């Protein structure tokens, strides 16, 4: 509905006066007239700018083999220096977006320059070194800039370098086959979460990577509880001869990172929230159980995994609610609903069970929706009950779990 019609309705209902309606309309119109509001102009200009850049790159690429190596190298190095020095000169002009754009291009250009040197001198192998060097050169740019995206680039380069390194030392397959990769991913996520208080501007970068790594791993862990025992047994037998430390080092990293994240959580937050600890504990049990599965029959294991996942989701929802994070409450509720739906998909065998299962699932979801609505009494952020934006809708309870 258009704003004008809404204002007419609100005026007619006596919610606002005609003067207030006129003032709101004036304010909105003046906002729409500001340069920042002209998103269509910016969008067209951006597409045009990108087309010009892509065209220049295509022209260079078309004549790439005719350009002498020395010119390519000198051009690449000059571009790198020009980007860094231009960013220095531009400084915080405006709100610093020009500098940060130049620094972002510098981060990409540094990686391209590494590739160029490798191409000109026909160098092979060790891609982790290239990514590590790119991460090292991207870090000062992130430190000098003020946009979180610059930090994302550094983290991506660093994690990609770690991935290539693990591949080079032939560990990556083993990590996946023994499921220890889950511990490594969560350990990195927890380490980032623990480091947040000291990262200043880049705390949000650490937060989203932490949530991503921990969240995706927990989804995978929840799924692993449903896999039949014989499907994972062969990999654990394959590495029977490998030493304990060589096999389980990611678990040690996970334990240390969990302790560090827990210590920071206790130290930094005055309020002791039982729901956060419950969510963390249940998620940890689910993770450990997914990597070291109990030798149970398939059905009890599936049900135990289901209970753990649901328990963690409920605890997470309450923890997020207690912190005033509506996004966290919604994520927790959706995770719970998805897990209930998946259980019945797992248990389906024939049409009768399918029908009964769907009815039970439907009733449970309706019940959940009702419970979620009732929950607003306990958790004010649910349903927009005015709990406010305690931690700015940062679902960092996920990081701590």
């Amino acid at each position, binding site marked *: 509905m258009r704003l004008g019609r809404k204002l007419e309705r609100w005026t007619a209902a006596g919610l606002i006066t005609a003067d207030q309606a006129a003032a709101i309309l004036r304010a909105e119109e003046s906002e729409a007239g500001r340069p920042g509001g002209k998103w269509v102009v910016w969008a067209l200009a951006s597409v045009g700018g990108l087309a010009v850049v892509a065209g220049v790159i295509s022209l260079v690429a078309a004549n790439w*083999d005719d350009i002498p190596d020395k010119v390519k190298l000198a051009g690449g190095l000059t571009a790198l220096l020009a980007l860094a*020095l231009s*960013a220095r000169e531009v400084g915080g002009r405006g709100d610093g977006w020009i500098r940060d754009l130049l620094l972002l291009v510098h981060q990409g250009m*540094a990686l391209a320059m590494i590739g160029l*040197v490798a191409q000109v*001198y026909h160098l*092979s192998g060790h891609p982790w070194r290239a990514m590590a060097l790119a991460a090292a*050169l991207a870090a000062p740019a992130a430190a000098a800039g003020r946009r979180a995206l610059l930090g994302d680039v550094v983290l991506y380069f660093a994690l990609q370098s770690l991935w290539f390194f693990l591949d080079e030392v032939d560990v990556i397959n083993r990590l996946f086959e023994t499921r220890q990769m889950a511990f490594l991913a969560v350990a990195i996520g927890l380490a980032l979460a623990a480091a947040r208080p000291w990262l200043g501007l880049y705390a949000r970068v650490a937060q989203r990577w932490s949530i991503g790594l921990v969240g995706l791993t927990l989804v995978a862990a929840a799924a692993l509880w449903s896999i039949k025992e014989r499907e994972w047994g062969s990999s654990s037998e394959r590495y029977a001869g490998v030493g304990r430390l060589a096999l389980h080092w990611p678990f040690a990293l996970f334990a240390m990172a969990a302790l560090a994240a827990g210590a920071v959580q206790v130290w930094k937050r005055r309020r002791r929230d039982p729901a956060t600890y419950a969510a963390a504990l249940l998620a940890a049990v689910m993770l450990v159980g997914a990597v070291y599965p109990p030798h149970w029959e398939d059905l009890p294991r599936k049900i135990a995994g289901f209970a753990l996942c649901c328990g963690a989701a409920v605890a997470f929802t309450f923890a997020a609610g207690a912190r005033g994070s509506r996004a966290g409450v919604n994520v927790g509720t959706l995770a719970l609903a998805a897990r209930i739906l998946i259980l019945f998909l797992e248990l389906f065998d024939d049409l009768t069970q399918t029908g009964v299962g769907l009815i039970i699932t439907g009733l449970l979801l309706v019940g959940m929706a009702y419970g979620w609505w009732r929950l607003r009494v306990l958790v004010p952020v649910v349903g927009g009950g005015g709990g406010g934006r305690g931690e700015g809708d940062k679902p960092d309870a996920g990081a701590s779990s």
Partner: protein
Amino acid sequence: MKSAALPARRLLLGLAIADLVVFGAWIGREEVARRAGVEVRLPVEGFDPRDLLSGHYARFQLAALGEAYKVQNQEEHPPRDRPATSSYCLEVRAGGLAHVARRRLPGDACPLWISAKPDKYARIDFGVDRFYVDERRRDEVARISAGDGTYLVARIFDGGRIHPVDLVLNGKSVRGR
């Protein structure tokens, strides 16, 4: 505001200097290796005209690799563990091509030698397995098969490292030297 801007300016100056030092040193080292090293012709076998995942690169395997394995298998006491590095003496035979003659032992005075590192499967790895090819020559390169006239021209420098200079396929230089 001024105090926050100052470290950023210093950092960015440092970044520009780091760019110059890192890439300058890297390029300088490769250039020195190509100018100061000893030129050899290393025969190539096992040839793939294009590395589709990396662009226009010809992938190849040095004949020295098979020769090094042969030397290793003939040894009475081959090393059981993965050696950190191993080096092999070269001898130039007919056609000016360099072949592995023997393992280079400590104190061995062979004038020409190359070094290898074990890869993740404990295989010998000379660190050279691809060469950038001009896109317009891709059809020509695709018809080449390994043979006597197919070899890598390289410079040997800094501890037996191989620095590729040119790839010759059936007597024709890829770089047009």
